[in-house]
C-alpha cells in the first residue's frame, strides 16, 4: 500500500488509522462483541472457538492468548475495544498502563501522581 501523506511520528504512540483498522478488523469486532455479557461468557468458556468464530488470524489469537497488550495494539487492536477484553480479565486501564510501560501498577500510579505536582 502506498500513501501520499507522510505520517507524523509520535514517540511511544500509534494512532488508529486505516492501516491499523484494516489489520485489526476481526480482532476489534470480537472485542466489540464483549459489550454483551453472553458473549463474554461464551469467550470464557472456549477462547479458541470464539477467536475462530470472529476470524482472528494466528498473530491475533496468540496475543489474545498471551494477554499481550502491546502485541494486541500491534495486531491492529483499538484501545477502546481492547478495554472490553481487559474488562473480562478484571484489568483496568492502569493495569494496561503498567503492562505497556513495563512498570508495576504502583509505579505507574505513582508516575501519574507525580505528573500532577
Amino acid at each position, binding site marked *: 500500500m502506498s500513501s501520499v501523506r507522510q505520517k507524523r511520528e509520535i514517540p511511544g504512540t500509534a494512532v488508529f488509522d486505516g492501516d491499523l483498522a484494516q489489520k485489526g478488523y476481526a480482532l476489534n469486532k470480537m472485542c466489540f462483541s464483549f459489550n454483551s455479557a453472553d458473549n463474554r461468557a461464551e469467550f470464557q468458556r472456549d477462547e479458541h472457538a470464539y477467536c475462530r468464530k470472529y476470524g482472528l488470524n494466528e498473530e491475533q489469537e496468540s496475543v489474545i492468548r498471551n494477554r499481550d497488550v502491546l502485541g494486541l495494539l500491534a495486531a491492529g487492536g483499538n484501545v477502546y*475495544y481492547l478495554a*472490553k477484553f481487559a474488562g473480562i480479565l478484571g484489568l483496568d486501564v492502569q493495569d494496561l498502563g503498567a503492562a505497556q*510501560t513495563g512498570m508495576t501498577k504502583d509505579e505507574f500510579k505513582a508516575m501519574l501522581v507525580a505528573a*500532577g505536582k
Partner: protein
Amino acid sequence: MAKIVGGITTSHVPAIGRAIAGNLQQDPYWKPFFDGFPPVHDWLAKVKPDIAVVVYNDHGLNFFLDKMPTFAVGAAPEYQNADEGWGIPTLPPYAGNQALSWHVINELVEKEFDLTTCQEMLVDHAFSLPLKLLWPNEERCPVQTVPVCINTVQYPLPSAKRCFKLGKALGEAIASWDEDLRVVVIGTGGLSHQLDGKRAGFVNKDFDLAFMESLINDPEWATKYSIEELVELTGTQGVELLMWLATRAALPGKVRKVHANYHIPISNTAAGLMVMECAD
C-alpha cells in the same frame, strides 16, 4: 427563542462510575475530583436549564467500525445507557427532545455538515457519567437531552478547526429554535491522557491549563493544532478535548468563567472541569 445559558466541560472516565457506585466521593483519591462539582450544582440551580445538548465521544458502545460516523446527532425519544463490558452500573434512560434534535439536524445539514442521524442510540459513560456528576441526587437525569457524538476512535478524526465550526453552527442552530427553552451545552472528554502504547500514562498539565484558559479568552487557540499535534501534546485520548472545543464554540460571544477545577490523576487521566456562562 431558545437561550443558551452556558457550557459545562468535564472529563469522563469509566472509573468515575465505579467511584459513584462505591460512594467513594470523600475517599482521599477521589475527593479532589468530586469536590469540583458542588459549585456546578449551584450554578445549575441558578440557570435552570431545560435541555442539555451533550457533545461527547462514543467508546465502542453504539458505533463500531462498520459504520463509524465523524459527527452523529441523536433524534430519539429516549437514550439507553448499556453494558460497556467493564462492569460499571448501567444508569437509567435519558429523555430526548426530538423537536430540537431535528431542528439541529436540519440546520447543520443546511450548513454542509454531513451528519449521521440516529433515531435510536445507546449512550455510553461519556454521556451518562457527566450527567450523573451534574445531577447526582436525582434518580433520573432531570433535563431532556440531545446527544452530539464526535469520532475519536477511527482516524482520520475531524480537525480541531472542523469541530470548532461544528460547535459554532450547533450554537446558532440552538439559538434559532423558536421555543422558550433554556439550554446548557455539555462537553465531555479529556483532558490529557493516553491509555495505549509505550507512552501510556502521559499527561500534560501545562498544555491542559493553557487550553482551559484559552476557552475563555481566545477560544480558537486550539484550532491551530492538527490532530496529530494534539495527540503528541495531550495523548491519544487527550484528543477528546475536541468536545470541549466544540462546546465552547457553541456558546455565542464572550463567556465568563464561573468555575474551574483541575486534578491529576483520576485513573490515567488529567481531570478538568469548567463552567462557562454566556455574557448577555
